[in-house]
């Protein structure tokens, strides 16, 4: 049963990451996704300190606020012509993340967060922290959080799909049509923040970046429409989870890291296959 919970949680986390990852990769915002995934740690820590206990709701609110603050502060710094955009991102998220780690160290007694776990996650422990309703155990907390965030992603992206498409393709054009570009940008950053929170228990702050960027990048290689790209990203994400889990069991290694390794392996495999097929493809283009 534990295996199923682990797989289901990993699968949901990877799916959420794949969906928002597509929008990040297309807008060339992978680095911002990286940044948010790290600075939400500060939000989670602050949520702990304010509530004095673990509260999923507070964690999500804290993470979203911190994610939006990261995105906003980054943009503010970029307004200075002497600060490059990658520098502004790098400055903001590393200092937020560092502050989070410092707070964890100071309040170690009050915060049930472990520095190792924050960085790498430990999906193997997911089944032991369960939601209990009366006498009945309803399964792991991390699973329910991942499911809730996945549903939020599906509903928000599904409903406003056309807006996200236009925003990703051409923000200037979107602006010229009178769409509220800052609003939809903030919405995407909110989804990224929520997705990262849900992924923390399972894969940690570093590997969530792999799940945000790699399946979406693999999908980018093969897809010809945004819908197809999201579909392919989901397929790549699920394959990475299944193969990664298999690898971890086989080698008795870390599950989340194995998933990351497999995601990277699938990207390389896709590239290799495309290279092999390339002569044909170029002939087709000429005709």
């Amino acid at each position: 049963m534990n295996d199923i919970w682990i797989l289901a949680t990993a699968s949901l986390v990877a799916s959420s990451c794949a969906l928002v990852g597509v929008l990040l990769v297309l807008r060339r915002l992978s680095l911002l996704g990286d940044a948010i995934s790290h600075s939400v740690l500060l939000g989670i820590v602050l949520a702990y300190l304010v509530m004095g206990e673990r509260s999923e709701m507070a964690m999500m609110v804290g993470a979203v606020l911190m994610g939006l603050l990261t995105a906003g502060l980054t943009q503010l710094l970029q307004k200075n012509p002497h600060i490059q955009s990658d520098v502004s991102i790098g400055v903001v998220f590393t200092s937020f993340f560092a502050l989070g780690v410092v707070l964890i160290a100071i309040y170690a007694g009050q915060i049930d967060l472990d520095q190792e776990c924050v960085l790498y996650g430990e999906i193997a422990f997911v089944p032991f922290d369960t939601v209990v309703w009366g006498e009945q155990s309803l399964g792991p907390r991390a699973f329910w959080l991942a499911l809730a965030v996945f549903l939020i992603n599906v509903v928000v992206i599904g409903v406003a799909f056309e807006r996200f498409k236009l925003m990703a393709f051409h923000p200037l054009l979107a602006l010229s049509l009178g769409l509220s570009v800052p609003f939809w940008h903030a919405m995407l950053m909110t989804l990224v923040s929520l997705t990262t929170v849900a992924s923390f228990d399972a894969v940690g702050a570093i590997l969530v970046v792999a799940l945000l960027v790699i399946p979406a990048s693999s999908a980018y290689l093969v897809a010809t429409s945004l819908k197809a790209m999201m579909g392919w990203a989901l397929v790549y994400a699920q394959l990475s989870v299944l193969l990664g889990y298999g690898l971890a069991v086989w080698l008795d290694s870390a599950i989340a890291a194995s998933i990351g390794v497999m995601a990277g392996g699938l990207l390389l495999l896709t590239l290799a296959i495309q290279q092999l097929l390339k002569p044909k493809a170029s002939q087709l283009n000429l005709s």
Partner: protein
Amino acid sequence: MSVSPLRVENLAMRYHTQPVLEGVSFDIPAGSSVAILGPNGAGKSTLLKGIMGLAPLMQGKVSVFGGALTDQRLKVAYVPQRDESDWDFPIQVMDVVLMGRHGHLKFWQRPSSVDRALAKQALQKLDMLPYQNRQISQLSGGQQQRVFLARALVQQADLYLMDEPFAGVDMMTEKAIVGLFEILKQQQKTIVCVHHDLNTVAEYFDWVILINHGLIASGPVETTLTPEIIAKTYGGRIPLGLKLGTQRKGNGRF
């Protein structure tokens, strides 16, 4: 029509701390086709972005059809420069054209069959209908430009602002764009284009705005596009390829 489709008053813009445009004022007649001319870096594209509210104004006022742009954005269609787009984006021609309908749709709505029919008509007008299911990366530069023009067309605007639509396109595309201008003129629409080829100005446009960080001149092609004003705009250097005195005369199409 007495209301000017586009009036710019004392506009100034900056790029970071560098002043790009200063003291630009003009007014254009309804139903005209206008070329914005000037040397590279004169601020032509910046001017269009300023008019569209896509870049901040330091000073000045822009009014379209006698009011603020924000109240009537859909009346103004903007065609960005081709190289400002991501042509590797996984999207098909039809979907790009349908984006012209987005302003008319609520965020949860999908384009309807009416929107699709309009998009097909627009593609037809630009000879791009056979390509409707192509991914945009598989198109030539000229075809990409035509997709963007079709996108602007389905917006059913009254004022069209285009950033270098003729830049780097093939003959067929140039013809298609000129054909589009004729259709728009028949419908009393106003066209404003950033343009770089002085040789074709008189043929394609009936009004010119010459800028070089500031306004040099604005007026009808016949009286404004004089060698003196051209020299003043381009700093005495006549742009390459311009055959002064042999400029093609308007052939009566406009």
